[in-house]
């Protein structure tokens, strides 16, 4: 195994371990969030984002790492995001959690993973069509919120923290 592959495997093991400890690999937790009854996956995800956002901002401002935004392609993100949401609700998993669920014995997740491999193969065939249509509508490129709004990321950070913490307080108050 190459260094690249070993690093990926090691990182993935810790990633999977934390997903399992957070109990976010369960079908019930995923559907629970979508039915607005159990916000475990959002507590988990938003906590990761808060910590990660500070770390990434410090390291990128120091020039140690570079950012890698995904393009704000309007058709792609809106239509693709909508399709993903529909499939996610029926399947009860996202790509990463389906593999993790398989690891904790929930073998029905195999069919979710199989469906997603089929979906990927289908997308590879439809790509030329999408490239000429949906993906060609409007692309704002790889932009971050600071550039889009014309304000410093250090100003966005506390606002984002305040909003997320208010959401957490609300989750706890409502026992979600």
């Amino acid at each position, binding site marked *: 195994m190459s260094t690249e592959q070993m690093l*990926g495997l090691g990182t993935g093991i810790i*990633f999977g371990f934390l997903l399992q400890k957070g109990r976010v690999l369960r079908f019930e937790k995923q559907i629970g969030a979508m039915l607005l009854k159990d916000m475990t996956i959002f507590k988990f995800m938003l906590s990761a984002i808060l910590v990660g956002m500070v770390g990434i901002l410090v390291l990128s401002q120091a020039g140690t790492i570079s950012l890698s935004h995904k393009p704000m392609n309007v058709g792609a*993100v*809106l239509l693709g995001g909508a399709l993903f949401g529909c499939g996610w609700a029926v399947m009860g*998993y996202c*790509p*990463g959690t389906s593999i993790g669920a398989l690891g904790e*014995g929930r073998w029905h997740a195999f069919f979710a993973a199989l*469906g997603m491999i089929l979906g990927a*193969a289908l997308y590879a065939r439809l790509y030329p069509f999408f490239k000429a249509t949906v993906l060609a509508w409007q692309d704002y490129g790889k932009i971050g919120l600071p550039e889009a709004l014309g304000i410093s990321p250090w100003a966005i950070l506390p606002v984002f923290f305040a909003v997320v913490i208010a959401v957490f307080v609300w989750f706890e108050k409502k026992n979600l």
Partner: protein
Amino acid sequence: MNWKTSDGGWNPYLAGALLGVLAVVSVLATTRILGKTSYLGTSTTFVRAAGLLERTASPDQVAANEYYTKEKVKVDWQFMLVCGVFLGAMISSLTDRSFKFEAVPPAWAERFGPSAVKRAGGAIVGGIIAMVGARMADGCPSGHGLSGMMQMSVSAFVALAMFFGFGVLVAHFVYRRRQQ
């Protein structure tokens, strides 16, 4: 607030915060060790897995496909990351005894009955739709939701809102009908 949840898991805020630390360390490690900054993500691996599987049957078709060529069909860092997720979840669940073989999720059975075939059908159809969407949007809840949000990407805010908005809409339609 408790450190442990009633089902034996860790407090989700704590487990999530640790994942945030892992995400930052991982970005730093890939930059320093591999010389190529990589952010956590999983959905591209499904494209590579599909390409690898198809290649065993028709290598020419895979080589000629524009999308497979663009995403590069190979076992890379992210591919191994996804394999690691499987192993990590297995290690965690076996050591805290939450590992359980399950044919149908209880919440699914409540709505659609105990048929494993029905559940498999739902998972496959849902999986196909979700992956076409994730590839179109160029990311899933890991790539957009975690990595994109951490970088304050505009696309991540929009994608996450679409994922969740449509997830809520469809979930209410699919899982709520009989309970009312």
